[in-house]
C-alpha cells in the first residue's frame, strides 16, 4: 500500500469522531470517500492532510510515517483542494494557481519558465486559462473551484486530496475534472483521495471506495463490488426517492401513490420522459409491457404505481399480457409514448388497439401515422401533453388532500 492509515482516529478538539480507520490505497489509484452529510468525510481528509490534528494513529505514505515529513516534503507529496472559501485580496487567478508551484520555486518564489508552463498547463486542463489575469474574487463559484483545482494540479503532487471537488462545477467541467483525475492517476501515477457525493461518478471513477456512516467506516472495497442499490439506500438512509446504481441516477420520490389513473405505453426510452413528467405533477400511472432489459424499466420501477414487465429476450407471455390488460382497463387515460410498433407479435400494439376500441382517451406522442381516430389526441411534445385537460383529474383534490397531509407530516 502506498498510502495507508493505521488505527487512525480523527475528530475535533481532542475528541475522536471516528476511530480505528484502517484504509489504504495503492500508488496511482483513486480512493473515494462516500457517505452521508456529517458522517466525517471532510474530517478524515483534513486529518490526512494535517489541517486538523489527528487524535491517534498513524498515516503512512510509502511506508513512512507522515508526521516525520517536513512541511515542504509534505507539500511536494501532497496537494489539497478544500471546501473553505478563500478570498485573497487583489490576486489574479494566475497568481492563485502559481502558489501551487510554491514548494518548487526558489527562495523568492520566482517562477521559472517551466513553472510558468506548468501553471498554464494546469489552468488549461481545467479550462481557466482565459481567466489568468482576472481577479480571483470576481469569479463565479464554479470558476473559483476550478482555479483552486488548477492550483492543486500544478503542485504536481504524488497524492492529491480533494474534498468534494465537483461542488459548483457544471456538468462538463465535472466530467472533465474526473477525466483529469483519472488521467493523473493512470498516467502520472498520482494517488487520488477524494470525497464525492455523486455516487455514480464515484463508481465510475474510483478504484477503491470507503463508505463512511455514523462515524465509522462502514465498507471498503472496489466500487463495482460493494456498491449496489441496496448499499446506497442503506448508506444514505434513502427512504423516499430512489437511486439506481446501474444508471447512476436519482429519481425523485414517487408522488402519486394511489391507484394508477394513467396507463403509459413505454419502452425503448420513450417512456422515461413521460414517467417523469407525470410524476412531477403527482399523477400516478401504470406502465407496460416493458422488457426487463429496457431502459424505461429502470425508471418505471421507481416511479410507476404498477409496472408490467416481462423477462428480456422473449415474447410477452400470456400471463403478463393479461396483467397489462387489466391495468389498462382500470386507467382513465392512456398515453402512447411512441414506442416501436413493429414486430409480428407485438403485444403492446395489441394493447393499444384494445384501448382505442375501448374508447379510452389516448394522448399520443407518435410522430408517424397520425390517423385521427376518435379518442386519440396527438401532441408534438410532452410539455403540451402534460398540460392537456385530460390529465386534470377531478379527483386531483382528494389527491391533494392526501398529499398535504403527508407534507405536513414531513415539513
Amino acid at each position, binding site marked *: 500500500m502506498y498510502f495507508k492509515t493505521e488505527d487512525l482516529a480523527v475528530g475535533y478538539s481532542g475528541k475522536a469522531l471516528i476511530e480505528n480507520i484502517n484504509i489504504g490505497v495503492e500508488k496511482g489509484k483513486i480512493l473515494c470517500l462516500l457517505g452521508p452529510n456529517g458522517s466525517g468525510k471532510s474530517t478524515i481528509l483534513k486529518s490526512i492532510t494535517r489541517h486538523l490534528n489527528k487524535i491517534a494513529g498513524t498515516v503512512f505514505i510509502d511506508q513512512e510515517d507522515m508526521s516525520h515529513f517536513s512541511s515542504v516534503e509534505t507539500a511536494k507529496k501532497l496537494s489539497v483542494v478544500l471546501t473553505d472559501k478563500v478570498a485573497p485580496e487583489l490576486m489574479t487567478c494566475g*497568481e492563485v494557481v502559481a502558489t501551487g508551484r510554491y514548494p518548487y520555486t526558489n527562495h523568492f518564489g520566482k517562477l521559472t519558465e517551466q513553472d510558468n508552463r506548468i501553471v498554464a498547463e494546469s489552468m488549461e486542463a481545467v479550462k481557466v486559462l482565459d481567466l489568468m489575469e482576472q481577479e480571483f474574487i470576481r469569479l463565479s463559484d464554479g470558476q473559483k473551484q476550478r482555479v483552486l483545482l488548477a492550483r492543486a494540479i500544478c503542485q504536481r503532487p504524488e497524492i492529491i486530496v480533494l474534498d468534494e471537488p465537483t461542488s459548483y462545477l457544471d456538468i462538463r467541467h465535472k466530467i472533465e475534472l474526473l477525466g483529469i483525475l483519472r488521467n493523473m492517476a493512470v498516467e502520472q501515477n498520482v494517488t487520488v483521495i477524494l470525497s464525492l457525493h455523486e455516487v455514480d461518478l464515484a463508481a465510475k471513477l474510483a478504484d477503491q471506495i470507503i463508505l463512511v456512516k455514523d462515524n465509522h467506516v462502514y465498507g471498503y472495497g472496489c466500487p463495482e463490488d460493494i456498491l449496489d442499490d441496496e448499499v446506497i439506500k442503506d448508506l444514505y438512509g434513502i427512504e423516499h426517492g430512489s437511486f439506481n446504481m446501474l444508471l447512476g441516477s436519482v429519481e425523485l420520490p414517487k408522488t402519486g401513490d394511489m391507484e394508477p389513473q394513467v396507463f403509459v405505453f413505454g419502452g425503448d426510452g420513450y417512456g422515461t420522459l413521460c414517467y417523469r413528467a407525470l410524476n412531477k405533477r403527482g399523477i400516478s400511472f401504470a406502465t407496460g409491457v416493458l422488457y426487463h432489459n429496457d431502459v424505461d424499466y429502470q425508471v418505471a420501477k421507481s416511479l410507476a404505481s404498477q409496472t408490467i414487465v416481462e423477462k428480456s429476450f422473449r415474447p410477452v407471455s400470456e400471463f403478463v399480457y393479461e396483467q397489462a390488460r387489466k391495468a389498462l382497463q382500470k386507467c382513465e387515460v392512456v398515453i402512447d409514448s411512441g414506442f416501436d410498433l413493429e414486430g409480428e407479435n407485438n403485444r403492446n400494439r395489441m394493447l393499444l388497439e384494445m384501448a382505442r376500441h375501448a374508447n379510452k382517451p389516448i394522448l399520443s406522442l407518435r410522430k408517424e401515422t397520425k390517423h385521427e381516430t376518435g379518442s386519440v389526441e396527438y401532441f408534438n411534445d410532452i410539455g403540451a401533453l402534460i398540460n392537456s385537460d385530460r390529465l386534470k383529474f377531478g379527483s386531483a383534490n382528494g389527491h391533494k388532500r392526501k398529499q398535504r397531509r403527508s407534507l405536513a407530516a414531513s415539513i
Partner: protein
Amino acid sequence: MKKSNLGKIARYQLVCIFLLIGLVAAVVFSINSGTVHMSVKDIFDIIVLRANEGSVESNVIWKIRLPRLLAAAILGGGLSVAGYLLQTFFRNPIAGPYVLGISSGSKMFVGFTMIVLMHYVKTIPAGIIVLAAFVGALVSMAFVMAAARKVTDMSMLLVVGVMIGYICSAITDFFINFAQENEIANLTNWSLGSFSGIGWSDIRVMSIVIFSSLFAVMMLSKPIGAYQLGEGYAKSMGINIKLFRLLLVLFSSLLAATVTAFAGPIAFVGIAVPQIAKMLMNTSKPIIIIPTTFLTGAVFCTFSDLLARTMFAPTELTISTVTAFFGAPFVIWLLLKKKK
C-alpha cells in the same frame, strides 16, 4: 496573457520610477529647506566635495538635515512594512504596526524611565530612552509571541495583542498617576513622535536593524504570498505555519520597535501606506508590495517630515500630525474613489 503581463510589469516599473522620483524630490526639497539658507550649489559642494567642513552650512547639512531625512526615509519605510506584515497576517485592514501592543510596550518602558527611574538615578546614560523604547517593544512582542504559540485563531490572537497593549497602557497610566506635570508633558511629547535629534550613530543602528529585517521579510515574501490563500492552503504548500507566524510577528515587531525607539510612535503610516501601495500596484504580490510599501513609506515620511519642520518653523509639528492630517484624507478619498 503575455500582453497584459507586460502591461502589469510596465505599471510596476512606472510606479517604482514615480516613487523613486518622489523620493529624490523629497530628499532634494528636504535638504534644501530650513532656517539656514543655502544655494543648491553650496549644498552640492558640501555633500559631494565635502567643502567647508566645520562651517555652519556644512554642519547644518551633515549633522542636521542629512541624518534627519535619512531617518525619516528609513523609519518611515520600516514602519510601513511592519504595518503591511501585520495587515496581511491578521487579514484586518486596521491592524497597524502598533496593534500588538508594540507602541504601548515602548511607552510603558519610556514612561517608567522618565517617571520612575529618573527619580533614583540622577545621571542617566545617553540613549537610555531609545533603549527603553526598544526593550519595551520587545517585551510586549515576547508576550504576543508566547500567546501566538497557544492561540491558533488569528482574530483571537489579535485580541490578545490588543489586550497586551491595554495592559501596557494601564501600567503607563499608573506611572502617570504619580507623575508631575512636566513629566507627563514629557511623556506625551515623546509619544507624539518626531524625527528630530537623530544622529549618525542612530542612523547606523537603525539601518542595520531595519535593513536586515527588511531583507528577512523579503525572504519571507514567498510564504506571505501563499499565506494570502488562507492558513489551510498555506499549510498544504509546505509552510511551517507556527514558525512563519513567529517570524512574521518577530520581524514586524522588530521594525516597529526600532521606529518607536528612535522616533516614537508615528500614527497612520503603518495602516495607510500599505493600502496606498496596494492601490498603486493593484496587486498583492508580496515580492512587489514589500519594496513598494517601503518606498512609499519612505517618500511619505520624508515629505511629511519636511512639512512638519517647515510649516510652522521654528515650531516643529509632530510627525503624526502631518502624516495623519495629509495621509488620512488621501486614504479616505482613495477608498471612496475605488468604490465607484
